[in-house]
């Protein structure tokens, strides 16, 4: 309804948010991958240092600087998140487009696969897949990708069905346009934005699951500088009062996850011409 159009600058604000978050996330990634591993050195004179000016996030029981470890861990998390969400999008795109296009049995099988994946708690499935892959980086990526393709598949499938049965595609077919033309001019413009946004929205789940599964001991091995590893180690020192070991890395992880989902939502807002004018 035109009567309730949105306030000024929503689009501009969304773009500003996207740029800001992209800059922060890229900075964390670059910083993390440029910190050499030996800068996280053992410094036995400065062990269990509470947060302060010299060590913003404090130091751990062998004197390693927690800020450096956290940034390193976050950049690893972001990498894992990117790979996980891209791979689940690929699965979702293949299933979501193939299902309605092939139709019949194939479509039913794909729907049933979605049900099957959702029938067991994600956590259990990721643990099983991770064990099958022998743990580590590969285990996490395959596990998260194997569990997170379902919702996006449903969205893409519904969208493809909608386009297939829509009047403008029917008309296009009557006018004798080729399948290639229809795919390029009608499918791609609708499905691609959904996929981009879907990929970004899977991302926070992916990094949270990565940290969680690693925390349980199924994910990245203990020598990796992952957030899950840091948090899992911190458990041993909680009772002796070293709260900062768990607090700051966790807060940073949550911030990254919130930033990515805000980024996805802003992108959704400016990409979709309909929601672009909603508050």
């Amino acid at each position, binding site marked *: 309804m035109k*009567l309730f159009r*949105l306030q000024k600058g929503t689009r501009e604000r969304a773009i500003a948010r996207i740029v800001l978050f992209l800059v922060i996330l890229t900075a964390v990634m670059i910083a993390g991958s440029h910190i050499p591993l030996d800068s996280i050195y053992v410094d036995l004179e400065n062990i269990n240092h509470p947060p302060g000016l010299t060590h913003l996030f404090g130091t751990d029981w062998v004197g390693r600087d927690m800020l450096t470890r956290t940034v390193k861990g976050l950049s690893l998390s972001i990498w894992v998140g990117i790979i996980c969400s891209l791979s689940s999008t690929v699965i979702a795109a293949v299933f979501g487009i193939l299902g309605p296009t092939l139709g019949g049995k194939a479509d039913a099988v794909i729907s049933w696969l979605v049900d099957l994946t959702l029938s067991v708690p994600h956590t259990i499935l990721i643990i099983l897949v991770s064990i099958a892959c022998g743990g580590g980086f590969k285990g996490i990526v395959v596990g998260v990708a194997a569990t997170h393709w379902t919702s996006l598949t449903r969205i893409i499938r519904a969208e493809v069905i909608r386009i297939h049965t829509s009047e403008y595609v029917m008309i296009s077919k009557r006018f004798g346009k080729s399948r290639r033309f229809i795919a390029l001019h009608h499918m791609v413009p609708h499905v691609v934005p959904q996929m981009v946004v879907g990929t970004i929205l899977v991302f926070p789940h992916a990094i949270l699951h990565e940290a969680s599964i690693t925390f349980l001991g199924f994910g990245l091995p203990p020598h990796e500088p992952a957030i899950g590893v840091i948090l899992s180690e911190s458990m041993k020192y909680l009772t002796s009062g070293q709260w900062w070991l768990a607090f700051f890395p966790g807060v940073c992880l949550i911030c990254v996850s919130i930033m990515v989902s805000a980024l996805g939502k802003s992108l959704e807002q400016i990409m979709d011409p309909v929601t672009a004018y909603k508050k």
Partner: protein
Amino acid sequence: MYTADMETRQKKSSPEDGMPVFQVMNFGVSFSQYENGINRKELHVITDLDIELYEGKILAVVGSSGSGKSLLAHAIMGILPGNATIYGKMFYRHEELTRASIARIRGKKICLIPQSVNYLDPLEKVGSQISRAINGVPKAEKKRRAIEMMARYSLDPQVYDYYPHQLSGGMARKVLLSIALLSDCEILIADEPTPGLDEPSLAEVLQDFRLAADEGKAVLMITHDIQAAVRIADRIAVFYAGSTLEVADAKAFSGDGSQLCHPYSKALLQAMPQQDFLPLDGVQPMPGDLPEGCLFYERCPIRCEDCRCSRPQSRPVRGGKVRCFYAA
């Protein structure tokens, strides 16, 4: 319980020149809108509206789609969303109404009869929604009265335990009417009561409103259907671009329309199938860009230079009211 009260009332009220039960003067509604993200713009959905309702009389407000009549009922009841601005004056008998006082008489003295079954809570039984209109009596008594009222409109007692989705369109209309009549209201506002009805149901609905009016209620019927309006209304107001252009006796809307004063009313009559079926060129102005002068200026066959820059006020002509400099 009804009739005694009614008779006294009917004696008191004389047909036209008595005191209106409900009156709306210079009434307007506008919404704020941002254009290009920077300029705030007022959308005048209803402007300079005058309405008078009398006991025992039916006033039909007739307007085509886009005239703003869908907001009229909600605006009068004061139930528009928060971003709407309302101005003008409203009177209930002698009392001038404010936003707070209209809330007090809402549902009690002044009742809305909405368009469709969608206005009933889908998960609440019809009976309990009907009996909420009655206050201050025990539950059993409420049910008794509700069923009695439903019987008046030939609704089966078991409808009391139905859910809204089980009602047919006609039944839903009767239920909504029962709710309005069960509350002790004096003013009925019916929002589009007739769309999509076949002839027998239409006759029935119109009969129901006539009956309510004959019992002493003041009825405002908002509709796009002139024919239906002519059949039951005492007076008809022609609604155009958010304002009433002419209020005239219903009888004036018959024959060749020579009784009508405003050029738009005449055009409306001529556009009816049993008349000349003549369409009128042009479109109504949008709420965002109303002309400075007469609202009908663009399409008017008798316009003059004055009409372009100043808007005619409503003035009495031949027992009705007209907004036109040249109508006679």
